[in-house]
């Protein structure tokens, strides 16, 4: 009942026009090899949901550079100038969302909530088009769930049934996105046998994860 599959097969499940969520924060904890394969398979017209679009030159940024993405939902695009360029020419539709709002929207989808009320964005253009609810004199925006067809994640360790463990700041959006997509694919540094991860050590329960891809060690991660 192993969920381990090959890189090419895993990414072949992503079709043109799909909505994908990608973990990572300016490259840290982003599933770089899955993203490279998305580019290689020339998947197009994707809607991308991610914190950012990486740093120009990294795997995440290539999704934009190679025009795989036609619509982007992100919190920050300042580290990849190509994103801003495509936005200004109209090649790429961009929706910017506060980071804490985006993560709660994704969590809402994963947790079966209809949405959450947040004070973030009140009095700003983030309000536009949203329902405002006043409670005890305080204003909140109703932010709706955000989910995807596919989530692409990066983890440090997995067992063969798909329990995931992340490391340090590479955790970021990965565990939340694991809950909010129809198909969840994780790129993993270390794959271990079932039972080798203590139940309390698991950060993403196996049932959220559909496929695991062994990360190829092309770069050395210094754990110093």
């Amino acid at each position: 009942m192993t969920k381990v599959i090959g890189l090419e097969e895993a990414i072949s499940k992503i079709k043109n026009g799909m909505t994908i969520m990608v973990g990572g924060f300016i490259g840290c904890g982003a599933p770089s090899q899955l993203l490279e394969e998305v580019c290689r398979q020339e998947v197009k017209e994707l809607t991308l949901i991610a914190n950012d679009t990486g740093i120009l030159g990294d795997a995440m940024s290539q999704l934009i550079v190679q025009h795989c993405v036609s619509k982007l939902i992100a919190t920050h695009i300042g580290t990849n100038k190509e994103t801003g360029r495509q936005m200004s020419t109209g090649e790429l539709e961009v929706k910017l969302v506060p980071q804490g709002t985006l993560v709660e929207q994704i969590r809402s989808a994963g947790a079966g909530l209809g949405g959450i009320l947040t004070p973030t964005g009140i009095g700003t253009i983030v309000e536009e088009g949203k329902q405002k609810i006043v409670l005890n004199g305080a204003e909140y925006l109703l932010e709706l769930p955000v989910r995807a067809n596919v989530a692409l994640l990066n983890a440090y360790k997995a067992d063969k049934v798909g329990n995931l463990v992340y490391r340090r700041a590479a955790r970021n959006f990965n565990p939340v996105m694991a809950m909010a997509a129809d198909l969840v694919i994780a790129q993993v540094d270390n794959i271990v046998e079932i039972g080798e991860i203590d139940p309390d050590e698991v950060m993403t329960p196996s049932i959220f994860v559909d496929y695991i891809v062994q990360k190829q060690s092309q770069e050395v991660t210094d754990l110093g």
Partner: protein
Amino acid sequence: MDKEARMEWLVKRVAQEFKTGDVVNLGIGIPTKVANALPDGIKIILQSENGYLGVGPAPEAGREDSDTVNAGGQYATILPGGCSFDSATSFAIIRGGHVDATVLGALQVDEEGNLASWMIPGKIVPGMGGAMDLVVGARRVIIAMEHCAKNGGLKVLKKCTLPLTAAKQVNLIVTDMGVIEVTLNGLRLKEIAPGLTFEEVQACTEAILIKPDKVAV
């Protein structure tokens, strides 16, 4: 003081706003420098919104860990007693009032405590990242910035003209010219940088400043 000395004064002045045990999130740029300017004996806990508490100094060369970077994407370290978490927890910490103070840069601030820091329409639109949550959620919002724009344009205004990051959330503005408190009556110039006069600061400020000797409201 020359410009460099005044920027140093700014950073040191912001660093005096904290007491030991405060949980603080420092924005990118000038705010980041505050970590190295804390008074002796003051130990604060730095939060990095990408997912950990206990931000330490940059690692030594050769000791970089690609999984431990700060919210600006630079290599960082986690101090003993620190802990890591996902983005949902990180923003629960931020929005839930568990951060005592955030120090952020700004494009504009105004006399109501409104802040504009995330975009210049038609020019640069980097996005708000975590700033909107930080400004709404942190117990104190401290703006650390140069008093005027590079082109000499004013930044401490009667009313922000750029899209806001948040409305009425700024508590303190520390610039290279002085320390300005946001009060219900407007902006009170609490301290003036060494060598400057009230009039000099006012001349670089669109909002009408309340003099330091007036009592704050």
